[in-house]
């Protein structure tokens, strides 16, 4: 199925990036326009016994939306992210980002936060966050301004001179998010960024993520295995089948743009997670070869 065919539910409108926003106005598409499009994308890992990891997948990411992808282990969620990011090439199909093909190189305007700790241990928090800007040759004064803002925004101002080793796992992940944020990506890809964190920290980090999403106006694609996280954070949740992963459902959450982790207490939250689990249960059983799996 093509998720983009379904009508949006909820507020839907997106504000243009404010003066502190990170989405670049020059290339950013308008609200509700396609931001990234995957058409009949497949990925097969070659070898003596080729492994069909993904697809065919169709996906239309709308500008400024928060889209989550859930699916059983090994269904190709991270492969999907790698393809969209240009970190690997699809076996078949096309990928467009802002109307331009993504062909094995990370396009400008795209930022990624990985599940693993990707902070640079030899750099201070400040230098970590400034890394991308310095490599891109951004004016030092502008770099300092953006980094100072990100330090404050992510609650890291008191740790600017610290090294990652002196921070908790959650703080290091915030450093990585800040490093992505300051480059002002228009599309942010998050590959289970809170996977290594405890539940309370995940909820709070989710709040921060929603705050920065609203602030930046960027489009966000979140890969996660946590249904509650996907349900709380997203406008739409794509549910993937077991390998080779395909979208089998698209759930519109209908949450207002101004939302936070208190959503989990609302009655509608259970409805969303129940629907996600209903679609995912069989696929998860298939993935682990469980007895209750239906063909």
């Amino acid at each position, binding site marked *: 199925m093509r998720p983009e065919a379904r009508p949006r539910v909820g507020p839907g409108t997106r504000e243009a990036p404010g003066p502190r926003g990170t989405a670049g106005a020059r290339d950013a598409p308008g609200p509700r326009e396609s931001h990234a499009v995957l058409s009949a994308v497949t990925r097969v890992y070659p070898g003596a016994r080729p492994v069909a990891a993904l697809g065919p997948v169709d996906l239309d990411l709308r500008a400024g939306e928060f889209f989550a992808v859930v699916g059983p282990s090994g269904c190709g969620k991270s492969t999907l992210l790698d393809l969209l*990011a240009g*970190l690997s090439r699809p076996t078949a199909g096309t990928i467009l980002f802002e109307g331009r093909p993504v062909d094995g*190189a*990370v396009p*400008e305007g*795209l*930022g*990624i936060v*990985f599940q*693993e*700790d*990707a902070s*640079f*241990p*030899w*750099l201070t928090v400040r230098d970590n966050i400034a*890394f*991308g800007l310095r*490599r*891109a040759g951004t004016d030092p004064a502008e770099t300092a301004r953006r980094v100072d803002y990100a330090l404050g925004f992510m609650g890291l101002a008191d740790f600017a001179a610290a*090294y990652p*080793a*002196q*921070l908790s796992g959650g703080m290091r992940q915030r450093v990585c998010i800040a490093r992505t944020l300051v*480059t002002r990506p228009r599309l942010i890809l998050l590959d289970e960024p809170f996977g290594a964190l405890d539940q309370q920290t995940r909820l709070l980090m989710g709040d921060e993520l929603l705050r920065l999403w609203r602030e930046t106006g960027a489009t966000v694609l979140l890969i996660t295995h946590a249904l509650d996280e996907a349900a709380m954070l997203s406008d739409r949740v794509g549910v993937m089948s077991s390998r080779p992963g395909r979208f089998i459902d698209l759930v519109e959450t209908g949450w207002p743009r101004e939302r936070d982790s208190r959503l989990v207490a609302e009655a509608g939250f259970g409805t969303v997670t129940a629907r996600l689990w209903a679609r995912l249960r069989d696929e998860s059983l298939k993935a682990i070869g469980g007895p209750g799996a239906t063909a």
Partner: protein
Amino acid sequence: MSRSAAVAAARLALLAGAVLALELLCRAGVIQPLTLIPPSAMAAALAGLLWSGELNADLIHTGGAVAASLALAVGLGLPLGVAVHGLPRLRRALDPLLAAYYAVPTFVFYPLLVAILGLNQAPLIVLGTAFGLPAMMMATLNGLDRVPPVLLRTARVHRLGRLDTLASIVLPSAAPFLFTGCKLALAYAVIGIIAGEFILADAGLGHAISFAYDGFENRTMYAVMLLVLGLATGLNLLLHLWETRLMRRRARA
């Protein structure tokens, strides 16, 4: 007192105790002066030699050769390690050779080097380099193997080129291993140079020890040996302190 300070104090006490025991055994005549002189006499002889300037030329000779060997071992071993790491087939072919390298008695080639390069510092420098270079190469390969893949993916996200990735991500990430390589290269260079001077050279600290040994000049021989030990230990200690300081930043709290 912190645990590490207590360990350091215990280590120092052990060393001081050994030196003191040696001093007492020598002074009591248990160890004959023709075999070993008391450590205090070694120190006094060394002070005299240094004060007189008698060892200056040898110090410069050995120091220059060690510095040149170290520079060549690091300067060649690092890029060679990077290049081999980027060529997996060559790596597979070289790995067993590198692993077995130190089983080869490199000194047997010293006469050949002298025949080719002449009786000067060049054979010594080649020998010292040949000793240190594989250690630097192996340390570089180890370090590059351990660069977390997520950092390389991060480099791609920032659209860094290969050289930029190497300079900004790979080498800093592998720095602890590279530092170990440098330490080993220094140690091997010192061993190679001193041993080479011992065999055939006409100058240098190794030659000074050999010359004193041949002439039964125990005071001079032990004084120079003490100097070599002191220099090697001091250099290693300096590198260790520098490394500890750098690594403290990376140690997880």
